[in-house]
């Protein structure tokens, strides 16, 4: 298949049939579920003509010729806006560089976990998607002339091309590992994000979990979880009771404490899916005697910003509102808890939207926690964590922010059997849930996530635990200090039944720290509790 085949009519451009093999014990037949059957209603209503997966649930198939033409027209209008310094000031320079200078050396393909995991599917090469975009742009600019074909503008621009590109933009985790290897410093991840932007910002098409139930809901209610102030206060009360039950210690969680030193912000999904994570933060911050607070204000308690993945305008609106909430609370600094994309959105992307007093300093929890451990603020017994532990580096914290060492200093102090994945740190592979995939559960998209985009991470996890993977008595723990990554890893462990069959667990970093605290009578990690403990 070539980029020129992208717009040609066919029921499905390609099928996945030779996925990358997994290591033991998943190298035997029958260890992996098959892909789900594609339903006729999905084929009729959405775009299944790319690879048979439907991820973008608002990319609805046009019903009339007029709607088809309108879709193409809107796409081309958005494409023009990408290259205008009026409408794309924020990314024009990096876009122009990546668009113009690619030498098509294909170095990026070998770095891409989706391409490798798929068994080398042509359309998943980082340059395939970019080349389709280039070809469309050149054809649009030059028409069907000889010059157009000479310079590479030789693709059929029709609604099928547009729809397939709208899906293909969601076959990349935006992890930017491809850009790390580019000899010219170019970024196929950025080009993918720019394609998503055309669909969202010009055509109003973006996956519902990111847009309608994501940023739109967050701007309306304060959080994509829809937690109201009252519900938030109930959750905090519940968390205080839960901590007391687990540890026998009573803490009062500070909320809306004006003028506190630290505003701690979590991914609001943690309160619902993994309340032990904010609970562990509470124990750590209280035991360390920090002057901290949570915010119950609209948009002040949820550090999520899905705009990072697909839409500049939404990202900016949410980021500005979050900084405003912190300023109104009068805190000295914001500390981002275990959420990778919130780290990047808040510390990096939003670093260009505020100045002066409005620009509240923001930092990661990692150096703060590493410092507390280095200063021996807590009494820790690493033998409480004496089981194999490996670390996943969230792309947004590692590759895009350069936070590598603090998490390792922490783990070396609390986990005697810590071992690295290969590769790791700044060269890590994405969890497969990046750029919103972790929350995109429409139609059969979870199959793509679990079997393809998360496949490399699952392989890395299995390889890190090869010495004990089949020893079912030994628990194994994957540290994922990011809510999004944790969601993706939760799903692969469940999908492959790795927890049930091989005792592989996952969780945050702070839980492991609290688990090592000698003051606690019982383990903090649930999988270490015996049946008697679980009864209480």
């Amino acid at each position: 298949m070539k980029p020129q085949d992208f717009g040609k009519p066919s029921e499905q451009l390609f099928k996945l049939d030779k996925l990358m093999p997994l290591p033991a014990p998943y190298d035997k037949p029958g260890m992996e579920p098959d892909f789900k059957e594609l339903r006729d209603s999905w084929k009729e209503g959405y775009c299944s003509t790319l690879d048979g997966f439907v991820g973008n649930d608002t990319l609805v198939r046009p019903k009339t010729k007029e709607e088809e033409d309108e879709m193409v027209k809107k796409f081309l209008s958005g494409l023009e806006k990408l290259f205008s310094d009026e409408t794309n000031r924020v990314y024009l320079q990096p876009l122009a560089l990546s668009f113009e200078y690619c030498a098509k050396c294909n170095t990026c393909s070998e770095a891409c976990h989706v391409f490798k995991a798929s068994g080398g599917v042509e359309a998943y090469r980082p340059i395939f998607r970019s080349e389709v975009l280039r070809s469309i742009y050149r054809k649009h600019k030059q028409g069907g002339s000889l010059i157009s074909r000479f310079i590479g503008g030789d693709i059929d621009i029709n609604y099928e091309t547009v729809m397939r590109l709208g899906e293909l933009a969601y076959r990349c985790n935006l992890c930017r590992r491809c850009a790390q290897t580019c000899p010219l410093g170019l970024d196929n991840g950025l080009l993918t994000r720019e394609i998503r932007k055309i669909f969202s910002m010009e055509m109003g098409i973006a996956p519902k979990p990111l847009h309608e139930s994501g940023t739109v809901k967050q701007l309306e209610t304060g959080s994509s979880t829809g937690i109201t102030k009252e519900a938030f206060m109930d959750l905090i009360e519940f968390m205080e009771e839960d901590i007391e039950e687990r540890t026998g210690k009573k803490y009062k969680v500070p909320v809306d404490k004006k003028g506190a030193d630290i505003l701690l912000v979590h991914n609001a999904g943690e309160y619902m899916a993994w309340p032990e994570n904010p609970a562990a933060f509470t124990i750590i911050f209280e035991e360390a005697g920090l002057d901290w607070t949570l915010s119950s204000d609209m948009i002040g308690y949820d550090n999520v910003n899905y705009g990072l993945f697909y839409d500049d305008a939404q990202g900016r609106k949410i980021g500005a509102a979050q900084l405003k909430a912190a300023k109104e609370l009068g805190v000295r600094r914001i500390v981002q808890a275990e959420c990778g994309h919130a780290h990047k959105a808040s510390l990096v992307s939003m670093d260009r939207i505020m100045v002066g007093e409005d620009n509240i300093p923001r930092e990661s929890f990692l150096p703060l926690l590493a410092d507390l451990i280095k200063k021996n603020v807590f009494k820790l017994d690493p033998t409480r964590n004496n089981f194999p532990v490996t670390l996943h580096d969230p792309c947004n914290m590692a590759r895009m922010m350069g936070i590598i060492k603090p998490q390792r200093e922490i783990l070396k102090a609390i986990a005697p059997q810590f071992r690295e994945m290969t590769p790791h740190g700044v060269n890590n592979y994405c969890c497969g849930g990046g750029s919103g995939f972790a929350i995109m559960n429409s139609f059969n998209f979870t199959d793509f996530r679990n079997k393809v985009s998360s496949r490399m991470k699952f392989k890395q996890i299995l390889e890190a635990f090869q010495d004990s993977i089949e020893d079912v008595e030994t628990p194994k723990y994957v540290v994922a200090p990011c809510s999004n990554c944790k969601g993706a890893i939760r799903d692969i462990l469940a999908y492959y039944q790795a927890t049930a069959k091989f005792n592989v667990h996952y969780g945050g970093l702070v839980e492991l720290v609290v688990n090592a605290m000698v003051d606690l009578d019982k383990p903090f990690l649930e999988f270490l509790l015996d049946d008697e403990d679980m009864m209480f």
Partner: protein
Amino acid sequence: MFLTVFIYLSIIAFVGLSLYKAYQFSKMPMHGRWELYPVPKEPDGKGHYGGSYYEDLEWWNKPRRVSYVGELVDMAKEMLFIKNLFVNQRRQWWICYAMHLGIYLLVLWAVMLLVGAITILSGGAVAADAGSWGALVYYVTFLSGAAGAILLAVGSIGMYLKRSFSETLNKYTTPLEYFNLFFLFVVALSGIIVWAGDIGFNYGREIMVALLTFSPIQADLALTVHILLLGAVMIYIPQTKMSHYVGKYFAFHKVLWENEPNLRNSKMERIVKEALSYKPKASWSAPHINPGAAAKKD
């Protein structure tokens, strides 16, 4: 005189158009932060493992330090040796680097021709037996010119053939990209044909003397064709993606390695302030961005 004027024009076009390209990138609006680690200018060894100031507690209260040496070393490795390709795709690096090394050597060759011409105009001689300086200039010119032309020819046609025969690469290569490689090969080949008639590159020094004294160039058909092709490619390169010598600076230095924080009272804060004051005259059309326009349309 036509050839003399043409060579001057092609040099001016190459430099001028390259600078214009750089100017076009530099005048683009301030972009959002889009860095990627490792960022080699991070000090204290952080540049090596991919660390940054975000690893430091209360990083904004620490003095901002930048390792210019680290940045220069990494830029030099990339510019001189195409390090990323060497590390990540060794098999392709050999042929690609042959072509680039050929170009670098030909730049050195041109400089040596100029040095030789100045030597001649100063009353000296440039030849294998013309004393230590004259011989040094002669041999450096000879070696750089010979190796440069051969490497450029082999590299450019090698890349052309590699792209043609590789099932993967030829899917992504446009006719224009084949043309670019072939153009470079033809220029190198025409140079080798001229060189075959004058192994010591005396014709090159004569051209340099003519350029310095602004006098006519004596050229036979082969040399005339070579000068026209070389001039044409110099005018052509900055207008194509072969001008990646410009793009690479911006891609690395101004995008991937620009992790400059917006600290209070910093230069970056002034740049951000100015950028924030800009009011765009156009907008995107989706309903959540432009609800007024959407409502009007409904």
